[in-house]
């Protein structure tokens, strides 16, 4: 029978089918970070349990880590306690950790793929909603809570009900400068933040096949912002070329066997989906979010919407509250919105390709005078090293950006990098919720090129025409 990509990977991981329709699902890879794991390790300790397969888990601190003065350690004692708890727990339970002084340390979802820890056809979990990132490899990758982190540590399994499967086709060709991030924001703008609830998404179509692995990761990363359990892309040469020769990738005979198996990891031609949507790549312009939910997103050519145009009362109230929080007037063109800060980084856009795209926008320019802070935060130590080898750090620094150490940084502002009340930020992260980047802070989600251009212009610009006699 014809199967979807999701079904193929799902079936290969069923340990046991339960009577109520749920399954015991085997988990191949477990990524761990400092914020959602301490209570899980504590649970193991209290029950006298050991990890089922310690080698399946890999840890790195990312959420709490400082992005400056690494040599001085972590100044905030509460953050330090949490990072030390991770170090101690990993040592006690025999889990490999890339600690603060390791070049491989970074945002867990940047570190994992970079090390070849994520392979096609795997099941991947992490106590972090953006685990969906790893679906870019044709893997089933899901965010879980701390109780499930403990469950996976103790049993290497999860109890799961099979979600429905939705295929989203992006047909045709993307315009130049349109990225995985723009596709993600555009889609969420179209289907809403609950549009994918109850579904696993498969992104397909010519435009998706043309994307690099970095861009596929940015897209799958935001599947969770559409409410989906996970997002996936079929395996092709792009996937296999990316994985090849990474430190944890198989080699020799195993590599040959693996790639043969991976060539099956796509939906069969006549596979049936629970739902299928299609969009035209040519309709996707650079996107900017204007509100406090990722679905409040519009093309850069648009204006801030009017709550009177909302679809119903609940949406109207949501828009009104968002406009008040964001300090915006209905009808204001997005290109007239001035910004105070810029953040380039995160698990959505903290990869080498993202910094290349951003650097190509700033070359020669300078961060606008009224912009108080422009941060470039590589997703991992290795991304930072690569960017420096290419001289990108110099481009950022000379333009007035700060070039920082890797971590989540101002994506969620758990460390010192944050917005002050009322400050407006062009951010390449994934969430524009109230207070996400600091209490009272105002976040606009954009691609790296859009964020870099906004830093120079001091306001949002259409990168397709900006600097070309706009």
């Amino acid at each position, binding site marked *: 029978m014809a199967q979807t990509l999701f079904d193929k990977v799902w079936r*290969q991981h069923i*340990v*046991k089918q*339960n009577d*109520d*329709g*749920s399954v*015991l699902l*085997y988990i*191949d890879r477990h990524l761990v970070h400092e*914020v*959602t794991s*301490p*209570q899980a390790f*504590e649970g193991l300790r209290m029950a006298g*349990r050991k990890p089922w*397969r310690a080698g399946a888990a890999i840890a790195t601190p990312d*959420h709490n880590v400082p992005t400056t003065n690494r040599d001085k350690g972590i100044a*905030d004692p*509460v953050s330090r*306690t*949490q990072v030390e708890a991770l170090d101690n727990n990993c040592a006690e339970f025999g889990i490999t950790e890339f600690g603060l002084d390791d070049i491989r340390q970074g945002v867990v979802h940047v570190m994992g793929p970079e090390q070849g820890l994520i392979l096609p056809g*795997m099941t991947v979990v992490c*106590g*972090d*909603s953006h685990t969906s990132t790893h679906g870019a490899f044709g893997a089933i990758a899901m965010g*879980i*809570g701390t*109780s*499930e982190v*403990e*469950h996976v540590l*103790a*049993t*290497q*399994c999860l*109890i799961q*009900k099979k979600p429905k499967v939705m295929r989203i086709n992006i047909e045709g060709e993307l315009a130049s400068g349109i990225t995985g991030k723009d596709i993600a924001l555009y889609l969420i703008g179209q289907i809403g*933040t*609950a549009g994918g*609830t109850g579904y696993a998404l498969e992104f397909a179509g010519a435009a998706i096949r043309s994307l690099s692995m970095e861009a596929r990761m940015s897209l799958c990363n935001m599947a969770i912002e559409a*409410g989906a359990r996970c997002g996936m892309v079929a395996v092709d040469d792009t996937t296999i070329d990316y994985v090849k020769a990474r430190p944890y990738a*198989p080699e020799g005979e*195993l*590599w040959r066997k*693996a790639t043969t198996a991976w060539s099956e990891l796509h939906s069969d031609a006549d596979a049936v989906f629970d739902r299928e949507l299609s969009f035209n790549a040519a309709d996707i312009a650079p996107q900017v979010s204007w509100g406090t*939910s990722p679905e409040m997103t519009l093309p850069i050519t648009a204006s801030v919407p009017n709550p009177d145009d909302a679809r119903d009362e*609940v*949406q109207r*109230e*949501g828009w009104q*509250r968002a406009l008040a929080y964001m300090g915006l007037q209905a009808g204001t063109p997005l290109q007239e919105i001035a910004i105070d800060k810029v953040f380039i980084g995160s698990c959505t856009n903290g990869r080498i390709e993202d910094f290349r795209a951003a650097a190509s926008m700033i070359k020669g320019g300078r961060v606008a005078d009224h912009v108080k802070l422009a941060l470039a935060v590589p997703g991992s130590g290795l991304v930072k090293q690569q960017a420096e080898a290419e001289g990108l750090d110099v481009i950022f620094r000379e333009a007035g950006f700060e070039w920082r150490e890797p971590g989540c940084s101002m994506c*969620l*502002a*758990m460390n010192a990098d944050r917005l002050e009340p009322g400050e407006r930020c062009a951010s390449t992260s994934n*969430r524009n*919720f*109230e*207070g996400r980047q600091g*209490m009272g802070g105002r976040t606009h989600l954009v691609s790296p090129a859009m964020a870099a251009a906004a830093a120079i212009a001091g306001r949002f610009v259409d990168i397709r025409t900006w600097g070309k006699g706009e």
Partner: protein
Amino acid sequence: MQAFTKLKGLVAPMDRANVDTDAIIPKQFLKSIKRSGYGPFLFDEWRYEDRGEPGMDCALRPKRRDFVLNQPRYQDAQILLARENFGCGSSREHAPWAILDAGFSCVIAPSFADIFYNNCFKNGILPIVLDSAAVDQLFTECFSQPGYSLEIELESQTVRTPTGQTFTFEVDAFRKHCLLNGLDDIALTLAQADAIRDFERQRRNTAPWLA
């Protein structure tokens, strides 16, 4: 885990759609390595006028008078009435921990975000999905009747209003069983240890690169 069987409790109305887990418990409180103590910081940015930091004595902080949970009539509420897509965003289990710590053991909404919904069951909180019309009705009644309370029974999967009107809700059988009995599902899964080992043995042949 605490079992959930039935509950008769006061209802607090959280009348916003898409309430995310960043709003339920802001990031600065995620630095704790414990499971408890999050209750005073539930909805921190909406509840207080100042910026909350871990360890603060919340009794001394300036409260926002207009925020629903600060109104005297909703003190000691045990049931949180909410709108669409409650608990979206981050997977932080600190969100249900905070809800539980603040005295709630049931959340009613027209829909929940996946991970949050799942996390509730792991902590003895019952998330109930009712259709939008029913939720609208409960909001109206809750706003108009001080002391409005509901009776929830998990066994019969029912919500009863003060007038005796009953709504039924769906809950999957396994989750219901665990919640009713306060079962730890790690122990249940470990009872399948042989099946897990068999699976791993097989996989060493079929997918040796994953072993």
